[in-house]
């Protein structure tokens, strides 16, 4: 049959590539990477063994780190030197390549397809998208203002951001077409964007109004405003796509929004001033983490709190492994990375002795969705 024949040929090519790509730290589901400027290092964290696997020494102080499973590459941002370092994770030598920029990389964000990175110069208001593989600039746009992170579309062709100074929701695609809509008045505390797993809808919190905006990304029009708790922060989507979980940073609650109905399902007490939420273990549980390090595990279906912990320091955003089993949370002021078992909602171990300026963890394969 013709269809099968064509497919099989493509598959053989794919498998021949896959079978040759085995080396030190190129297992995108297993290793996370954490940068430290003071030590000019990137720490390779083995999420399976929950240990420090390796330290990559750099010539320059890193300010950010992103990782691509598709290219088996680490991308390190250097703000002070206006450059990137590209590290080939598929070679034992971990070959480093200098990649000069014409802007300061305040933010370096990997696209979902893993072949392009967005580089943002916050002071200059300049956003570029680079093809890492081809080492060319695909997109360069000026007058971009945001204090929060960027969000890619599922195919990596469009980048979304909010400009809280104007109260707007914005997008630009690789063909330089820009769009902007006004969501609210300037300075209302718009959060970063989270999109639904099918890529059709964006969710943005507005802290001052205690609402979450739903935006239709195909029409680029606001759909709904959903009332949540006090001072909502960035919504966090469950990987099964059912819920957006909103940390109400102005209070001590978490709101679950049904992505199907756009309705608030529950608002429940969790921790004081929650800042991020990590769903895990087949989206049956979520860890709500406060800005002071309180951790509460909730049952996602009914919002009940089932376990509490206290981290001894201010945490950075956590990451969850692709099997949804392990949550890793960096705690810079303790130089530690703390691990939780999401299945059993239990603290299991930690890595100690890292520098006190470690940044967030970057993980190549962190979701469980194919699209």
């Amino acid at each position, binding site marked *: 049959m013709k269809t099968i024949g064509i497919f099989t040929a493509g598959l053989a090519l794919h498998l021949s590539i896959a079978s040759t790509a085995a080396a030190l730290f190129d297992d995108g589901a297993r290793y996370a990477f954490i940068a430290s400027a003071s030590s000019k290092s990137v720490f390779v964290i083995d999420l399976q063994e929950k240990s420090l696997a390796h330290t990559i020494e750099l010539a320059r102080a890193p300010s950010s780190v992103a990782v691509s499973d598709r290219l088996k590459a680490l991308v390190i941002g250097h703000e002070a030197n206006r450059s990137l370092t590209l590290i080939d994770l598929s070679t034992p030598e971990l070959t480093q390549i200098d990649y000069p920029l014409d802007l300061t990389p305040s933010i370096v964000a990997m696209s979902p397809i893993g072949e392009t990175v967005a580089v943002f110069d916050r002071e200059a208001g300049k956003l570029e998208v680079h093809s890492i593989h081809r080492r060319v600039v695909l997109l360069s746009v000026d007058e971009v203002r945001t204090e929060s992170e960027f969000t890619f579309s599922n195919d990596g062709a469009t980048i979304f951001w909010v400009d809280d100074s104007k109260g707007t929701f914005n997008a630009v695609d690789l063909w330089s077409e820009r769009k902007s809509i006004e969501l609210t008045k300037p300075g209302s505390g718009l959060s970063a964007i989270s999109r639904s797993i099918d890529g059709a809808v964006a969710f943005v919190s507005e802290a001052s109004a205690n609402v979450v905006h739903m935006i239709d990304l195909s029409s680029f029009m606001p759909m709904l405003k959903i009332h949540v708790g006090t001072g909502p922060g960035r919504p966090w989507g469950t990987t099964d796509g059912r819920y957006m979980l909103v940390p109400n940073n102005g209070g001590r609650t978490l709101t679950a929004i049904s992505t199907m109905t756009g309705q608030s399902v529950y608002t429940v007490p969790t921790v004081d001033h929650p800042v991020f939420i990590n769903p895990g273990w087949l989206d049956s549980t979520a860890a709500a983490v406060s800005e002071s390090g309180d951790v509460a595990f909730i049952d996602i279906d009914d919002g009940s709190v089932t376990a509490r912990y206290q981290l001894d320091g201010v945490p950075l955003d956590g990451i969850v492994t692709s099997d949804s089993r392990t949550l890793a949370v960096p705690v810079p002021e303790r130089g530690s990375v*703390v691990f939780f078992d999401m299945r059993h909602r239990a603290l299991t171990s930690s890595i100690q002795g*890292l520098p006190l300026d470690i940044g967030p963890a970057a993980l190549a394969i962190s979701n469980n969705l194919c699209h």
Partner: protein
Amino acid sequence: MTVRNETPVSRPALMHFCLALCILVLCSPGYAEEVVKGNFDLIDHHGQSVTEHSFDGKLRLVYFGFTRCPDVCPTTLFEVARVMRSLGDDAAKVQPIFISVDRENDTPEILAGYVAAFHPAMIGLTGSEQQLDAVAESFNVTYGVERASDSGSGLDSVYHSAYLFLMDRQGAFIDIFGHGAKAEVIEARLREYF
């Protein structure tokens, strides 16, 4: 700089340096099994009706996907095939199952060619919309299909959860592996149940 790894929570160093421990633990470990029930009533790539009981006596590796998937599905199934080859004679104790969520494209005939490209023991399953919805709910799997004719994009858009499920000899849940799990990890876990 010295870096050390700590493991059990009970170690004094960990208590002092990192964490003030658990205030309240109310959870029980039983909910994992409740999340994944593992029931199905589908059509295999020979056109025969099958349920989870059709494979009783064998451990199962169950994966949801679609045959036109360019990367995640074939990569995962390639790892499953590596497991099967590495198991040798013990492979007879394991049934790899691929459930397609793209029922319009993935006919039993197409599924037959697809799974055979990975391993002769692999079986492909499909079903009606109602059957696929039921099996997705039973495994706590998300999927969606948007046809090109509806989206106007020129391409069908398919998404689905990318977990690989390990089920026991009666079809009950044992464990999951995330996208990117290597054959060695899967095989080691399987062998715990031989």
